[in-house]
């Protein structure tokens, strides 16, 4: 018998898994001093996130990364942890639990979180070497070891867990087949259409499927050699993984005489038939239901923690259940009902087979009661919210299936998350158990600015993603980046998106293209024409002082510093600062055009002159002649600053309010030569008549009597977008600082080949305002980083090449015959 210390009540927790430990955390936040707590775990590990085991199997996370409460946490909170030692019996009369090798431990209150056991089909061969369940770290270790020795795996079970296991083994290089009893995959979470889309996608990734497949026997003498199906089909395998489901682990409870059915029976207060014994998680049965997904279990933990802390009001009400699949690049989401239950229910579906997108929303009495999403799942959490809040959707029913952005434009209530009012202790990420306080602390202590960084440091929103909006709101509240739910893969060479790659480059200090490919597991040795220019830019932006530009990863125009034309000749556009020129420059251009027989001379939309049809080998000489008149590269070929268009402004115009031309020249002098994610065009108009068309530029300045309106995110191209208003300023110096800061924010955070217009539309003008206007320190830091980077790049590439640099680029290797 262990005596109680300090006269506190003794709480013994059997089970060191997610449900029990979340309950302990909930208890500690409410009543940290009430109990002397001992936690007993059968596995030799601290509490880890079982949901993320599939990511460990797939090699995307390490075991350490999925630990929720490291051993230090138990010490800090005064919790005694005994691991690797299962409880063998409960004596409810003596109020003790027995541990092999330790003896008996007394309790005043007992919490059972014994979890579940994998279901095994009643077939011969389960005892063979090479047959594993997929339940705990030991199983994952065994599967990883098998994948290193063997080639062929069969997963029995095409549900959530089975498919994640199959994908993990595939990622580890095995050839994988999935045997599933039903005709479509994940039939409990997906309807037939979504199940078929999923099967098609996974099939194209090289996983074989045997649906309507009943496993008869696992074949082999000592070790597994294959699987035999009832219809006679045989599949060879060295590794067989059982993932057909789970059942509550109630052996201990049953032996102790507690009331059990399928699971250990509990009431709304999470108490078992013994009032001193509570239970949570996958081991329980509540109202005829057993549990395998995380959301209802967190709710149980909250109620149970409150009860243990002495709150007799807390009552468990099952929340809506939602699921997402953790297979990189496969987006599946489902919540609530999968289909209309009767004629009163409505189904709204959207199916775009070519893009692999399928969405279904199920309505009852104008309320959302279920949703199945495939391929485009960012709105999943929103549908869950509508379900939870029982929102009447009749006003925006027609837009509902297109998602939140459309519906809110059509009048759906815009849900604002009030971060200021949220207490620090409130749980934000349910999958990983991260509170608002922990997220704020990490953002402040580590200076995090992006969603990815918060995910990496706190694990918040790193699992199912349903709390992403909250995490983003916290970031925005503290002045960090609100970013971007979907981060689509960069190209066929990788599954990583632009945001994730940029994040890894900074956080892991990757400094060469080869290092990025190596660290992030690129599938191709050289990359391709999509990722190489992007990586080259990302590295240049992240490490402006040290990165060596890779000419072979530049698109021809940027490598050659001229624009390639359809016949293989090039065009040459010298810079005209703010659209200003003079007789000497014009004479030089005229002379060059004649001397080199340049066929076309044209005025561009950006107030400059374009010489078209120049042969590649003529370029250095043409540039040399232009340089002599003071003309330099206009970077008309660059994903970089192009032009600053101006009107004549107060110097000449009778309506001009400020010197728009002069300001345009100053801005261009600051910005020329910069590399950006896509081309950038600016304009300065001298009055609101806006003759320079500043409101369809990436950055525009519209002069007014009172000063300068800075507008951003416009575009006059394929999809015309009018700028958003950023700020009104009173001096030119302020304009320069804001323009530099905005450009740098765009340089650091946009995806490659994303113009400012879609970028601003994606992150929102509020976010840009927050970073560039509201946060003055951040603005100055951005502006300074921009100027530093500019010091590295502001030298005329034409002058260098006219003087002989990169000569091989402009000469044939040989002339033959």
């Amino acid at each position, binding site marked *: 018998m262990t005596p109680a210390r300090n006269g506190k009540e003794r709480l013994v927790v059997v089970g060191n898994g997610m449900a029990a430990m979340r309950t302990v955390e909930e208890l500690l936040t409410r009543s940290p001093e009430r109990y002397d707590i001992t936690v007993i775990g059968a596995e030799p590990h601290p509490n880890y996130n079982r949901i993320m085991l599939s990511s460990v199997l797939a090699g995307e996370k390490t075991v350490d990364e999925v630990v929720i409460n490291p051993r230090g946490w138990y010490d800090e909170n005064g919790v005694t942890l005994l691991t690797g030692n299962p409880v063998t019996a409960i004596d409810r009369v003596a109020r003790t639990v027995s541990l092999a090798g330790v003896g008996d431990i007394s309790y005043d209150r007992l919490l059972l979180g014994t979890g579940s056991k994998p279901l095994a089909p009643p077939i011969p061969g389960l005892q063979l070497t090479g047959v594993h369940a997929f339940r705990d770290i030991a199983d994952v270790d065994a599967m990883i070891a098998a994948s290193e020795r063997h080639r062929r795996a069969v997963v029995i079970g095409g549900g959530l867990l089975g498919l994640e296991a199959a994908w993990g083994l595939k990622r580890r290089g095995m050839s994988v087949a999935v045997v599933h009893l039903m005709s479509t995959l994940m039939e409990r979470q997906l309807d037939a259409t979504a199940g078929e889309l999923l099967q098609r996608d996974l099939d194209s990734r090289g996983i074989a499927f045997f649906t309507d497949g009943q496993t008869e026997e696992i074949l082999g003498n000592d070790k597994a050699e294959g699987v035999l199906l009832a219809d006679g089909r045989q599949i060879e395998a060295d590794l067989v993984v059982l993932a057909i489901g789970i059942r509550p682990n109630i052996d201990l409870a049953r032996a102790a005489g507690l009331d059990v059915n399928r699971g250990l029976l509990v009431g709304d207060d999470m108490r078992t038939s013994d009032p001193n014994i509570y239970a949570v998680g996958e081991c329980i049965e509540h109202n005829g239901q057993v549990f395998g997904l995380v959301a209802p279990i967190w709710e149980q933990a909250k109620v149970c923690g409150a009860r243990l802390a002495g709150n007799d009001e807390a009552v468990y009400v099952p929340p809506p259940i939602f699921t997402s699949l953790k297979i990189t690049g496969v987006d599946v989401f489902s919540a609530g009902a999968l289909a209309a239950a009767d004629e009163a229910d409505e189904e709204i579906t959207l199916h775009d087979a070519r893009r692999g997108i399928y969405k279904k929303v199920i309505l009852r009495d104008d309320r959302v009661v279920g949703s199945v999403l495939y391929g485009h799942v960012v709105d999943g959490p929103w549908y869950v919210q509508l379900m939870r809040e029982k929102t009447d959707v009749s006003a925006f029913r027609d837009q509902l299936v297109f998602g939140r952005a459309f519906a809110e434009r059509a009048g759906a209530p815009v849900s604002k998350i009030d971060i200021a009012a949220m207490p620090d202790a409130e749980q934000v990420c349910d999958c990983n158990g991260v509170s608002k306080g922990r997220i704020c602390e990490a953002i402040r202590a580590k200076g995090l600015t992006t969603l990815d960084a918060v995910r990496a440091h706190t694990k918040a929103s790193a699992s199912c993603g349903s709390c992403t909006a909250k995490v983003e709101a916290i970031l925005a509240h503290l002045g960090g980046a609100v970013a971007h739910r979907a981060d689509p893969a960069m190209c066929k060479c990788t599954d990583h998106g632009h945001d994730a790659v940029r994040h890894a480059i900074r956080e892991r200090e990757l400094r060469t293209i080869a290092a990025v490919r190596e660290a992030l597991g690129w599938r191709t040795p*050289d990359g*391709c024409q999509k990722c190489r220019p992007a990586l080259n830019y990302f590295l240049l932006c992240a490490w402006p002082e040290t990165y060596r530009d890779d000419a072979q990863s530049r698109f021809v125009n940027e490598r050659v510093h001229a624009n390639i034309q359809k016949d293989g000749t090039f065009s040459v556009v010298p810079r005209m600062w703010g659209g200003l020129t003079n007789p000497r420059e014009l004479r030089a251009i005229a002379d060059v055009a004649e001397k080199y027989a340049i066929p076309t001379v044209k005025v561009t939309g950006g107030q400059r002159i374009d010489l078209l049809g120049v042969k590649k080998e003529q370029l250095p000489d043409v540039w040399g002649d232009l340089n002599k008149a003071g003309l330099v590269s206009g970077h008309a070929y660059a994903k970089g600053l192009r032009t600053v268009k101006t009107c004549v402004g107060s110097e000449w115009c009778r309506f001009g309010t400020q010197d728009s031309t002069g300001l345009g020249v100053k801005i261009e002098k600051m910005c020329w030569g910069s590399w950006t994610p896509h081309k950038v065009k600016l304009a300065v108009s001298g009055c609101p008549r806006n003759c320079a068309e500043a409101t369809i530029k990436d950055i525009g300045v519209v002069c007014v009597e009172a000063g300068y309106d800075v507008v951003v995110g416009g575009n006059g191209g394929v999809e015309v977008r009018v700028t958003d208003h950023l700020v009104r300023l009173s001096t030119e110096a302020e304009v320069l600082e804001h323009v530099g800061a905005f450009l740098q924010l765009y340089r650091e955070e946009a995806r490659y080949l994303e113009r400012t217009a879609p970028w601003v539309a994606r992150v929102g003008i509020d976010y840009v305002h927050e970073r560039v206007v509201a946060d003055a320190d951040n603005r100055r830091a951005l502006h300074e980083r921009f100027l530093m980077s500019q010091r590295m790049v502001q030298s005329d590439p034409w002058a260098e090449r006219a003087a002989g640099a990169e000569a*091989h680029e402009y000469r044939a*290797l*040989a*002339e*033959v*015959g």
Partner: protein
Amino acid sequence: MAGRRWIEVGRLDEIPRRGSRRVRGPDADLPIAVFRTADDQVFALVDRCPHKGGPLSEGIVQGCAVACPLHGWVIHLDTGEAEAPDEGQVSIIAVKVDEGRIWLAAPEACSARKPEAA
């Protein structure tokens, strides 16, 4: 292949890795692109994309293929064939590299000379 004549066009180190340079032949409209891959394999193709005649020598070299700069068709350097779903092929020219020197198979009697320095 007895009697095949080879013409020296330059040194391997005159072409950047993952890069290409042009050789101008007797037919001014049919220049030849000589490619050097990351692992120093050398290929020669007629420098015209089968799609719209773009100069393949200006493309981004990736593995044993090049992406045409005009519209992004990917052409395999060893066969001259376009990557599916695009369809088309350019002629390839036999190459040999001997002690760091690149030789192209000659279509007919002709001789090589270096271009004048620019």
